[in-house]
């Protein structure tokens, strides 16, 4: 995996996905070391200084950074000389290991209380996203086959109860509230859940500052009243150095179990995530990655570590795909793809399913080996709408056999889809080339075990050459696709 890290030229860009800039910084720093046959103390000092800056810029807590740097420095200086690694590679390895240690190992597992309901208490500062996260969490429990009940115990903020009710209606989860007070609402909610056979109770509370002792007492009271199985602290991914203080203070009052990280779809570098785990010893259990209620999932630290190290997050991608794709349909479509009988209808159908997996930009960011330019640029979903519109403006015959599209048909399609004939012909050209390349591949990917990885590589390789035949090739664009998964899939699939 290290061999891949020889960095290609990278350019700064405005929009960055979570952790992406951290990834880039690490890449740059480490690749400079890697080339060296011998490392001086100076080399190490310089590298650790840069890593320190990178972590601080990512809002990792000051003390956590100091610890990380100190450990890394010590290990680098005292590193046993390994025969198989150059000193540079050794530093890379040490940094990788330390980073994984900081992010924490296992994913957080939710187990259900034997005495129903399983009670979840949500706590956090104002504006961290508790109410939205409560609804998203309820949706998640529902997807796990549970029957959640939401409690609106935020009676401070105007209209907070309305907000939770509106969100709950979208996911068809009932909301319990009581105007008398937060503790009463929570207690009543517990009773309601027991009586109506709801097996998960999620208590949304008002945002509060840790210095506000009256409100901290109140949430302690709520906690005493419902005796939660899980207490989650909701933390905004954009939080700075203060995240650690907040977590410590809530932990002192409530005994946190885990953290829910919100607004991860921004360009914050997420240092808070690293720091809380290290300082409070509580992992990030869930992460919210988008505006829709389904943009919420369990957080996998080990996968995130790999993402930071530039390896993508294929496991999550596969999970999401499995959730959305109908197995048989996908297999049939793949079959047709390999046979070269894949139609534009299939394409649109698959594309729609891909989009169900979430934001395209978040899907792209999970793919390994995708160049920064592609990851960083904001994916304009309207482009995809346009592609869809083009296909939908075709006749069934044209969709099956795009070769019949001539000048006048092209003009008609363009008119029908609100695009230009050039856009139509570009899409068709790309589609045909892909289909041809895929057909050619079917022969390559024959038989037995070796087949999987070979097909993979072959496919992408071919795909690239297919693009090479495109009259509109951008010389710089071609390297984007070949990298797409050659490295990445190899990285993860062996573990299968």
């Amino acid at each position, binding site marked *: 995996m290290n061999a891949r890290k020889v960095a290609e030229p990278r350019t700064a860009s405005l929009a*960055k996905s979570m952790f992406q800039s951290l990834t880039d910084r690490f890449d740059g720093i480490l690749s400079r070391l890697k080339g060296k046959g011998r490392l001086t103390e100076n080399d190490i000092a310089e590298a650790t200084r840069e890593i320190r800056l990178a972590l601080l*810029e*990512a*809002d990792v807590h000051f003390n956590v950074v100091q610890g990380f740097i100190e450990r890394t420095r010590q290990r680098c200086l005292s590193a046993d000389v390994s025969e198989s690694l150059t000193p540079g590679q050794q530093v890379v390895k040490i940094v990788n290991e330390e980073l994984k240690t900081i992010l924490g190992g296992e994913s957080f597992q939710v187990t259900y209380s034997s005495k129903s309901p399983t009670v979840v208490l949500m706590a956090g*500062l*104002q504006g*961290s996203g*508790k109410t*939205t996260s409560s609804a998203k969490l309820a949706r998640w429990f529902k997807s796990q086959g549970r029957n959640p009940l939401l409690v609106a115990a935020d009676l*401070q*903020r*105007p*209209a*907070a109860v*309305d*907000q939770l009710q509106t*969100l709950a209606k979208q996911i068809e989860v009932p909301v319990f509230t009581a105007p008398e007070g937060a503790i009463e609402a929570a207690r009543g909610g517990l009773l309601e859940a027991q009586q109506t056979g709801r097996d998960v109770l999620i208590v949304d509370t008002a945002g509060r*500052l840790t210095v506000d002792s009256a409100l901290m007492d109140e949430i302690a009271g709520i906690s005493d009243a419902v005796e939660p199985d899980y207490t989650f602290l909701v933390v*905004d991914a954009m*939080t*700075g150095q*203060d995240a650690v203080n*907040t977590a410590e203070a809530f932990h002192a009052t409530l005994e946190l179990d885990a953290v829910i990280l919100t*607004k991860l*779809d*921004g*360009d*914050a*570098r997420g*240092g808070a995530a690293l720091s809380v785990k290290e300082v409070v010893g509580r992992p990030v259990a869930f992460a919210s990655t988008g*505006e*829709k209620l389904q943009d919420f999932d369990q957080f996998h630290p080990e996968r995130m570590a790999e993402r930071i190290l530039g390896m993508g997050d294929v496991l999550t*991608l*596969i999970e999401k795909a499995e959730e959305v*794709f109908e197995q048989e349909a*996908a297999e049939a479509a*793949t079959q047709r793809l390999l046979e070269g009988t894949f139609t534009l209808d299939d*394409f649109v159908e698959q*594309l729609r399913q*891909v989009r169900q*997996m979430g934001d395209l930009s978040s*899907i792209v960011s999970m*793919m390994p080996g995708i160049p920064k*330019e*592609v990851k960083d*640029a904001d*994916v304009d*979903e*309207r482009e995809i*709408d*346009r592609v869809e519109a083009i296909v939908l403006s075709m006749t069934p015959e044209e969709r099956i056999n795009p070769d019949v599209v001539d000048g006048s048909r092209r003009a008609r399609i363009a008119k029908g889809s609100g695009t230009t004939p050039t*856009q139509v012909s570009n899409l068709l050209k790309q589609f045909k080339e892909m289909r041809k390349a895929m057909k050619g591949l079917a022969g390559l990917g024959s038989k037995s075990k070796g*087949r*999987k990885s070979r*097909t993979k590589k072959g*496919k992408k390789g071919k*795909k690239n050459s297919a693009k090479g035949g495109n009259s509109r090739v951008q010389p710089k664009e071609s390297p984007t696709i070949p990298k*797409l*998964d050659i490295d990445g*899939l190899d990285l993860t699939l062996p573990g299968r």
Partner: protein
Amino acid sequence: MNTPFLIVIFVLLMVALALLPWAHRAWSERNGRADSTKTSPIPDEGSMFTDLEHPETSDDELNRQTQGQQSESGPDLLRVRITKARDLVSNRLKDIRGDSVDPQIWEKIEELLILADVGVHTTMDTIARLRATAEDRGLSEGGMVLDQLKLQMMTELSRDRALRTVAPKGGVPIWLFVGVNGVGKTTSIGKVARRYSDEGRKILLAAGDTFRAAAAEQLEQWALASEAELVRGSEGADPSSVIYDASEAAAARGVDLVLADTAGRLHNKVNLMEELAKVRRVADREPGEVCEVLLVIDATTGQNGLSQAREFSDAVDVTGVVLTKLDGSAKGGIVFAIEKELGLPVKLVGLGEGDRDLVDFDPDLFVEALFGDE
């Protein structure tokens, strides 16, 4: 073949194919940008507002109207509130003050600044200059260095923080509140409304956050509390039209100032930023006139605050910053970077939970409260 693998291949293919035209454009744009530094791509109007999905986190700041904090006046309040936060750093400050000027003191000051979210770049820069001054003037005690630090930071904060309540061209003055989710836009509007209502001005609130569940209800309660008028649309309505309606209503009813709420949005969502740019353009049409575009920033925000300020400025020409929630252990050091790199002055500070505790920003007090240890 096993299915997950098949599916991943599939996904990759579909996405790759779908993104080709876009990737191509992204490339040409990027290359183009290198030549002419600032060509912001403006897509065609027609399709611009198709995707109105905003983030929808709670936009709450500390709006417990139950407790009004009227006893303390603004500046005192700022000091008292930040004092709470200061306790955490006061030990460090004491330590520095008692120190002699040796290499260690710079590390301690660095820690102090970083922990206040001032940011690596600004911190390094500040210390370099502080160090030069200290050597120049032969400062020998930690206390002297600390005083110099405060002086230096105060002088670097901008002085022009006037809020424009009068439209130069005579239109209805409109203030637009923008920012990421959950920073306290709606609450800040409520507090500004309260403040100007108390001064006897006629205020109208425009519920331009048509996306987040119950955002308009939240603003409605603020309107009631501050005796302001309210114009709202239905949930999911076009925010531009709501705000335009508000400015027409304001002109008809002789309102002095329109405070327009907008939905929270992450600054890296292109479509949503385009939507916001349109809101600003429409709000600026007659009879309205945009006088202030206030970016609301949560004081607990880390280095991302700079990125927020940059993107929002690019999209809607922000005229000032409202720093909210400055009453916890928050520090708000990011405003130094924002003021310095983008020239955006902080105009208002939200200090706490009462509805009268949004005060004018005072740089001297702010610095004093952060690094003062008297």
